[in-house]
Every structure is written in structure tokens, then in C-alpha cells.
């Protein structure tokens, strides 16, 4: 399996990035490399919305990917959007190389609840696995608990696991 590159964006904490990265390596059976931090403000920050355009980040990630056939995932704490949407948890190119995930709306604090690092970590891992899954060509899956289930609410993320369902796993193993 070609490597997965993990990129911290706009000051994302490296400790969590490394933990998530190594877990992704296990899930996708791929070597994981960490790239230096990138500031995306100039390229993706939309002043009128106060959010980062995730599609612009994908363009940037495509331009820095070191090797062919590899995957690249950027993780940020900035709030992401795509035009016409209020926000997105993340975005990825189907069969593409790049994915981006934001931790901003994955914390309990964001919803006025008591901070819980374990829950935050789990949500982040699920979203990263999900978006990377898209880069390998997986679409949304309807199986309960499958990580490829679509989540538009944070509760949806908590409801699913960080694992692929048998069908999605079979697909990934054939890769």
C-alpha cells in the first residue's frame, strides 16, 4: 500500500496528529509519514464567513503531495465549509489523493458540554478514517455502525464505530 501523508494545518496539535496517524496506518495497512505544518489561511480563509474553504485546502494538499499513488490528509482545528453549506466536518476527493478533517465541531465544548478528550479523539479518528475511505473510492455506506456511514451531526459520528463494515472492509482489502 502506498503511504499516507499526514499534515497538521494551522497549528493543529502534533501529539494528537501522531496518535491519529498511526491508527490510520493500522486501519489502512499503509506506512504513515508526517509532513511539516502548513498555514492555509491565505489560500482558504473566507473573511466574510470566518471559516476555511475545504475545497481550497484540497487543492493545496494536491500540490504538496510528495509521491504518486499516495494519500494525503490534512487535519485542522479551523471550521470548514464548502460553498452553500454552513459547515462540513471534512471533505475528500473520491479516488482522489486528498482529504481534510476539522476538529472544531468534534469537541464537546463546541456544543456547550464538558470537555472529554477521549470522545474528541474517537470522533476525530472516525472522521479521518471516513474521509480517507473516500480517497480510496468508498462511497457512503448504509450499514449501521460502519465508519463510512454519512454523518451530518456529531451524534451521527458517535453512533457509528471507527471500523469498516464487512462489505467496506472487503472493498478495502481488495485495494
Amino acid at each position, binding site marked *: 500500500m502506498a503511504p499516507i501523508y499526514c499534515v497538521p494545518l494551522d497549528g493543529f496539535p502534533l501529539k494528537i496528529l501522531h496518535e491519529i496517524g498511526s491508527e490510520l496506518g493500522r486501519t489502512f495497512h499503509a506506512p504513515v509519514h508526517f509532513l511539516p505544518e502548513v498555514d492555509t489561511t491565505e489560500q482558504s480563509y473566507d473573511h466574510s464567513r470566518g471559516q476555511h474553504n475545504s*475545497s481550497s485546502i484540497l487543492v493545496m494538499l494536491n500540490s504538496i503531495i510528495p509521491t504518486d499513488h499516495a494519500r494525503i490528509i490534512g487535519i485542522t482545528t479551523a471550521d470548514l465549509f464548502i460553498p452553500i453549506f454552513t459547515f462540513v466536518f471534512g471533505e475528500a476527493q473520491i479516488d482522489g489523493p486528498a482529504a481534510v478533517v476539522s476538529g472544531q465541531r468534534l469537541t464537546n465544548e463546541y456544543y456547550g458540554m464538558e470537555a472529554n478528550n477521549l470522545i474528541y479523539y474517537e470522533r476525530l479518528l472516525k472522521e479521518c478514517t471516513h474521509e480517507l475511505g473516500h480517497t480510496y473510492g468508498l*462511497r457512503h455506506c448504509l450499514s449501521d455502525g460502519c465508519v463510512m456511514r454519512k454523518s451530518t451531526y456529531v451524534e451521527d459520528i458517535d453512533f457509528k464505530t471507527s471500523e469498516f463494515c464487512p462489505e467496506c472492509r472487503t472493498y478495502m482489502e481488495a485495494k
Partner: protein
Amino acid sequence: MKAEEFGILIVDDEFGVRDSLTRWLEKDNYRVEAAGSAKEALLKLDTGSWDIALVDLKMPGMDGIELLQRIREIDEQIAVVIITAYATVDTAVEAMKIGAYDYITKPVDPDDISRLIQKALEHQTLAKENILLKSNIQEMQEQYKLIGESPAIRKCLEMVDTVSKTDSTVLIRGESGTGKELFARAIHLASHRRFCPMITVNCGALPDTLLESELFGHEKGAFTGAQYRRKGRFELADGGTIFLDEISTISPKTQIDLLRVLETKQVTRLGASKTLKLDFRVICATNENLESLIKEGKFREDLYYRMNVFTLHVPPLRERRSDIPLLVEYFVQKYVQAMNKPVRSVTSEAMDMIVRYTWPGNVRELENVIERAMVLCKRDRIDVDDLPFGLYAQVEGDNRDSLANVERAHILRILHRTDWNITHAATMLEIDRSTLYNKIKRYQIDR
């Protein structure tokens, strides 16, 4: 249906919106394409099949509203969702009035759009059935116009029951106003095709050139004025029934085309090279004598035989007089609800007159007479005064226009007006009381 079977077309002049929305929807497995302008969208609509169109309201050139109107002309079934900014929500609401399925205000929650699309697609899947369910209820009520216990109507209903179990072409014959379309609907609703639409075409109402494109549809540019592709009535009736009313009026050229369609169940849109294989049942109706039209060379004999697998003769109202009181009651109830008038029934004198009238315009004429009477009626029962004068003069008899008949009707009317006060009635009629008594006896008028 699986997600990949649904086609979603995004129409937005902003590249960022098109691009990201396409990517986002593709992840749900939908077949997604994007167009950067209304013009490009029309091209895609011409060549592909779409279930949902997400249309930006504000675009340079043709805007979302105009595109919506065009889409409505081409295909009634696509759910058009208007994308709007807060500032233009009013316009979006207007768009709903001209047939948009819904609108979304930018920026929208991802969850809202997910749910909207799911709802729209469910709507698409159920659309045919829903429309039918709704019209079924209406139709079922209308079907009550088929009310009747007379042997003539019984025979008809038995025939409806028999032919509805087959898929054969039916020719419905009967005078105008007898309710041929209602019988066609009854056959359709009793058949296995009831969950698909029954499409009605009144062949007599359209000039020949229009009729052809109406029946068979046309491609863009098939003739002057054919700016866009349009589905024909046969296509719309796919899976269901097509009802061709006033079939005798179609031209020799259309007769040939129609014969071919009935034989092959294949339709080619005007200007198209591709033929469509369709599945429909044909019911035709006429109030003309087709046999004499054939003799005169105005109607093709081969088409006649193709249509005439089953013939249903709908009897004129005068041949089923015993059903008239039931029909009257039905129409009174119908208009009581519509007009909110406290009319409950019909006096026996008025009913007597209604039953005896010849009804050349059949059930339709009866309905019109009751509707008019309901408007005029100032009491709680429709009376002789509320009926059109023509009825007095034309009550059936060996000599229906006779002076005797007119006199009887007039006396009856005056008796009603005076509430059977013989002295008053006699004064008004300028005859003496004994003469009036004699006439009442002679004409067998009773209270």
C-alpha cells in the same frame, strides 16, 4: 431504488458551488452532473434523465425561475429545488407557486440538504402513486356518478368488470354527456394499471399537427416552434392507460400513425430517430357512428378493428330513467357542499318533471340543471320553479311539446307557488276553482 439510479443535476454559475456540491452528492452514490448556466442545463436535460434539479436562482442570462418554467414544459416529473440567498427568499417562494419542489437558503446545513434530497427522491418514487392516490379518491367519488341500479347500467358495470381484467383495447360508445370518460376511468381503476396514470387526450380539441406532437411527443427542432424536447401522452401513460376521446375526429394521417402505435406499442417522438418501447392500455371513445364513417371512407377499417376488441355501450339517460333520482340526490349533495346552501332535496313535483324529461344532453345536462337549480333555490328543497322552463315543455310523452304538457307543468308550478291554495292558484291562472280541480284530476297532479 438504489441511490445510483437517481440523477441529480446541479445548475449554478459559480464553479465552487458546482464543484463541491457535485463531490458531496457523489459520495451518496447519486449520479451527479453540473451545468454552469441554464442553457447548458437545458442541453443536459435534453440528453439525460434527471430526478432532481438543484437550480441557483440568480444566474446571468436565463435565471432560475425561467429555467424552472422551461423544465416544467419539458418534464413535469423532475423535482426542481431552488437555491437562493436570504435576500431572494420571496422569489423562491414565488418559484414554489410555479412548480418548484422546494428551496434552500444559502448557506444550508448539510443535514438539511441531505434530508431534502432524500425527501425529494422518495417523492419521486412515490410521485406517480401519490398523484394517483389523490386522484383515485377524487375519481372514486366521480365514479359514484356511475351510480345506478337500472338493468342498463348494471350491464355496463359488469362489462367494466370483465374488460378491466384484460389488457385489451376498449371502444366506449355513447351519446355525449353519458360519462364515457368516467367509464374509462372505472376500467382503468379496476385494472392492474391503476397505480400508473390514466392520460386523457381529447382528440377533437386539437388541430391535427398539434395532436401528433401531443400524442407522440417531439424532439427539439422537430418543427418550427419546437424549442425543447417534450414527452408525448403515450410516454406519460407508460405503465397506465391512455384514453383517446372523440377518436372519430382524427385525420387519415394520424389514423395510420395511431394504428402503428397500437400494433407495435412503440412510439417515436416527432423528429427522433429512436423508438421507445412502451406499455400502455388504450381506451377510445366516440359518439359518432364509426361504421358509417368507414363506409364514407373517413375512418380506417383496420384501425376500427384494432380499437374495437371490446365495445362498451353507455346507455343514454332516458334509457335508464330509474337511476335519475339517485343521480339527482348525488348532484344535490355535491353542490350542497360546494355552495354551502341548506338545500336538502327535491320536491316530488320537481323530481317528477326531471324524471320525465328526455335529457338529450344526458348525465352532464342533468348535472347542469341541478347546479343551476341549486343557485336559484331559495328554500330547502328544489322546486319546479327552480328548473329551466325547457323542462316543462319537453317532458316526455307521446307529444311532449303539446299544449297539454305545457299546461300541466304551468299548473303544477302555480300550485307550488301558492302552496296548493286552490283559490289563489285559480285566481292566478284566471280560471275558476272547479276548472282547476278538473285539470288537477285530468293531469293526475298530486301534492
